[in-house]
C-alpha cells in the first residue's frame, strides 16, 4: 500500500521543471544536491507534492499556494520598449561574483540576492517587460534552489537521464511510451525483454504487467554485468518474484530438449499441440560456468559504486561525474536483488553454504524462466546495445502467433536488417519502422513559440505482429 507521506527508506524524486534526481531518504543520511550536502531528515513525514527550498544545507518547506510560483514582489514598474539602447557591457551589473558569493555565505536568501541584482543592474529598467520576466526566471533558477518532492514514476525517472541519455540508449518519452504501447503489454502478460537501459524498460514493463504477469530478461552470456538501477528507483527491489532472467545462449537447449522432468502439467499439454512435433528428450538447462550464470538471478548485496564501476566497464563510456556522485550517494546496500553482478565479484563476496543455496535458487529460477519461454510469450521487447537481429530471430519461435514485438534501437540500420529478416521469413505482419519527431513549446502570453532547443533523435522503433509462420502447418485445425 502506498502512503501519502515520505517515509524512512522511500525512494524520492526531487523534481523541478525538466530536472529530476532520485534519492533514498534515510534518517541521519545526507545527500548531495548540486554539489552541496543536504540534510533530508526534514522530508520524513511530509506529504508527497511538498515543495522545499534549500537554505544553507537545510530543507525549508514552502507552505501555501505560492509554493509553486515563487513570485518576486513588484520589483520594478519601469520597462523599456525595445533593446535599442542596451549595450552588452560587463559594467551593466555592478555586483561582482564575489559579492554574490559573500551574500550566499552570509545566508542571505536567494530572493534578496535577486532583488540586489536588479537594483544593481544598469539595464534592467530599460529591458522590455518580457525580457525582464526572462531575466527573473533565469536568476530564480540559479539563486533559489526549489524543488518538489515526488513519488518516482517512469516519467520522472526518465528526466534523470536527460543529461546522459546514452545510459538509456537515447530513449525519449515518445519512443519509450510507444515501445510500451506497441508491445501490448498489460496486466498478466508474459514478456521477454532484452535491455541495456539501466532497468528502465524492464521497470516500465514490470509496472504494466502487475503482479500477475511474468517477465524474462534475456541476458547475453558474454555480459558480465546487468544494471537494473531504475528498478530501485521505482521501488521494485522487493517485488522480484515475477522477474526472471535467462541466458540467451541457453535458448538452443530449450529447443533441442523438450521434456521437463517435473514442473508443469500445462507444459505437456503444450507439447501435444506443438507444430514441430518434437516431444521427447531430456530437458536440461545446463548451468554453464560462464560469468553470467555464476552471478545469475542473485540476491547479492553490492556497493552501488561497484554497480557503477562494472557498468562503466561494460559501456565503455564514462559516467558523468554529477550522476555518479548522486547515484553513489543514494544507495549503498539498496541494490539488493536489483542487479546481477559478475561471477568474479560473487566469488570474492559469497562463500560457504549460503552460496550453494543461492546457486540452487538460481538454477530453479532459470528452469522456471525456461518453462515460461517454452510455454510461449505474449510480447517481445528489445532495447539494447546488442545487435538485435539475431536475438529477434532466435526468439520468434517462442512467441504466440498474433503477439506484439517491439525492437528499439538508437540506430536505424540494425532495424533495417531486422525488418528485412522478418519480412524475408514471412514471420510478421504490420511491419512498421519509424522514428518520432518531438518538440516542446513555450506557451506564454504573446510569446508562444517552439522551444529553442529540441532533441534531434529519440531513436528508432521497429514493430510488428507475429503471424503463423511458414514452417508451421496451415491446414485448418478441426
Amino acid at each position: 500500500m502506498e502512503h501519502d507521506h515520505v517515509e524512512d527508506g522511500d525512494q524520492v524524486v526531487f523534481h523541478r521543471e525538466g530536472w529530476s534526481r532520485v534519492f533514498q531518504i534515510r534518517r541521519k543520511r545526507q545527500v548531495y544536491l548540486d554539489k552541496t550536502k543536504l540534510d533530508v531528515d526534514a522530508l520524513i513525514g511530509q506529504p508527497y507534492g511538498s515543495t522545499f527550498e534549500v537554505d544553507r544545507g537545510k530543507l525549508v518547506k514552502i507552505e501555501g499556494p505560492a509554493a509553486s510560483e515563487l513570485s518576486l514582489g513588484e520589483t520594478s514598474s519601469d520597462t523599456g520598449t525595445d533593446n535599442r539602447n542596451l549595450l552588452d557591457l560587463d559594467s551593466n551589473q555592478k555586483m561582482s561574483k564575489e559579492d554574490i558569493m559573500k551574500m550566499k555565505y552570509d545566508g542571505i536568501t536567494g530572493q534578496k540576492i535577486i532583488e540586489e541584482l536588479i537594483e544593481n543592474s544598469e539595464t534592467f529598467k530599460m529591458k522590455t517587460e518580457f525580457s525582464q520576466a526572462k531575466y527573473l526566471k533565469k536568476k530564480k533558477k540559479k539563486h533559489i534552489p526549489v524543488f518538489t518532492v515526488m513519488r518516482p514514476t517512469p516519467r520522472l525517472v526518465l528526466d534523470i537521464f536527460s543529461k546522459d541519455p546514452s545510459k538509456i540508449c537515447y530513449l525519449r518519452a515518445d519512443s519509450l511510451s510507444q515501445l510500451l504501447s506497441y508491445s501490448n503489454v498489460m496486466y498478466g502478460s508474459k514478456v521477454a525483454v532484452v535491455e541495456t537501459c539501466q532497468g528502465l524498460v524492464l521497470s516500465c514493463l514490470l509496472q504494466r504487467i502487475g503482479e500477475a504477469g511474468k517477465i524474462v530478461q534475456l541476458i547475453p552470456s558474454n555480459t558480465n554485468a546487468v544494471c537494473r538501477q531504475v528498478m530501485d528507483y521505482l521501488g521494485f527491489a522487493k517485488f522480484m518474484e515475477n522477474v526472471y532472467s535467462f541466458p540467451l545462449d541457453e535458448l538452443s537447449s530449450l529447443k533441442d530438449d523438450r521434456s521437463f522432468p517435473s514442473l508443469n502439467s500445462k507444459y505437456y499439454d503444450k507439447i501435444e499441440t506443438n507444430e514441430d512435433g518434437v516431444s521427447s528428450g531430456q530437458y536440461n538447462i545446463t548451468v554453464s560456468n560462464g560469468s553470467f550464470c555464476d552471478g545469475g538471478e542473485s540476491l547479492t548485496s553490492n556497493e552501488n559504486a561497484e554497480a557503477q564501476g562494472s557498468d562503466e566497464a561494460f559501456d565503455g563510456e564514462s559516467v558523468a561525474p554529477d550522476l555518479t556522485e548522486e547515484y553513489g550517494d543514494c544507495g549503498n546496500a539498496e541494490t539488493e536483488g536489483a542487479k546481477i553482478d559478475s561471477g568474479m565479484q560473487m566469488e570474492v563476496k559469497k562463500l560457504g553454504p549460503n552460496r550453494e543455496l543461492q546457486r540452487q535458487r538460481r538454477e530453479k529460477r532459470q528452469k522456471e524462466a525456461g518453462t515460461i519461454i517454452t510455454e510461449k510469450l505474449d510480447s517481445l521487447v528489445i532495447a539494447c546495445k546488442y545487435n538485435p537481429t539475431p536475438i529477434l530471430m532466435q526468439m520468434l519461435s517462442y512467441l504466440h502467433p498474433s503477439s506484439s514485438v517491439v525492437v528499439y534501437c538508437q540506430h536505424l540500420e540494425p532495424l533495417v536488417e531486422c525488418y528485412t529478416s522478418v519480412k524475408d521469413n514471412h514471420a510478421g505482419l504490420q511491419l512498421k519502422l519509424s522514428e518520432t519527431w518531438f518538440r516542446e513549446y513555450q506557451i506564454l502570453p504573446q510569446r508562444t513559440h517552439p522551444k529553442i532547443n529540441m532533441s534531434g533523435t529519440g531513436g528508432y522503433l521497429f514493430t510488428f505482429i507475429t503471424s503463423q509462420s511458414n514452417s508451421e502447418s496451415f491446414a485448418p485445425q478441426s
Partner: protein
Amino acid sequence: MSFNANKHNVGCGDTVLLYVGYDNMLPVVVEKGKTHQTKFGAVKHDDLIGKQFGTRLQCPRGWIYLLRPTPELWTLSLPHRTQILYTTDISMVIFQLDLRPGSIVAEAGTGSGSLSHAILRTIAPKGHLHTFEFHKERSEKAREEFHLHGHAQCVTVTHRDVCGEGFQLEHTVDAVFLDLPKPWECILSAKRAMKKQGGRICSFSPCIEQVQRTCEELSAKKFTDIVTMECLARHFNLQYAKLQNVSFKTIDETIDPQAEADSEPPVKKANVTPSSRDRRGDSDMHHFTSAVPAINMPGHTGFLTFATLTSNDVN
C-alpha cells in the same frame, strides 16, 4: 474478451481483426452462422471459432490473417464516429499521465474510443475509466463496444457535456484527459475530480489558441509543471535503391607515362583496381538498401499539454 492477454483462441462473441493487408483490417464480432465478405471472398464465422489468433486463413481469392485486437490495431480499424487520436499521441498521453494498472482516470470526450481502449489496457483490471461524451448515440455505441471487448467492469460511460455540467467527481481520479473544444472551461471541474494526493492532467487541442487559454487557466488553478509538446511519427519504407556512379580519371590516366613509371607501385595499384571494375556493366550503379521516409505524412495532429496538481494545491 479478445483484448485479454490470456486469450489465445477465438470464441463466439469475440472481436477479431481480419487482416487483409497492411493497415487494412476488418473488425468482426464472431457469431455462429454468420458470413463476412472481404476483398478475398467470404469468411464463414463458424470457421473462425476455435482458431488460434494469428492463424492464416485460405479465402476463395487469397490469404487473410486472424488477428487478436490490440488497442493499436483497433485504432487503425475502428469505426470512426469522430476524429480520433493515433498511437503516437496516445502513447505519450498514457506515459505522461503516469497510468498503470489500478489508475483511475477521467476522460472527456469519449469520441470513437481510440484512446479509451489504450487507457483501459493499461489500468485494467483494478483501475477505472470514467469517460464522458456529449453525443448520446456516440456514448451508447462506445458503451456497447467496451462491453463487447470485455472492459465492462473497468469503465463507466456517461452521456454528459462536461463543459458546463462538469465531471461531478469528487477527489476520485489520478488523471484527467481532455479532448474538448474549450478545455479551459473544465479545468476547475477536473481539479475537483483529482484525488487529494494530486494527479496529472492532459489536454489535447489542435489549435495553439486553445492551448494558450488552457495553459493560462491551468496556471491560474495552481497546476504546475505545465508542458506543451507535439509528436509525430515518421514512417520509413524499405527500398532497394541504386544510383549511377560517375567515373573519374584515375592517376594512371592523368599522369604522363614517364611520371607513372616513377610512382610507387602500391599506390598505383590501389587507384587502378576499383576504377577498372566500375567501368564494367552494372557495377556502374551503386546499390543499397534505403529506409525512405514517406513523401507525405501528417504534419499535425494536436498539441499535448500536460500539468501536475500536487497535494499542496488540490484545495
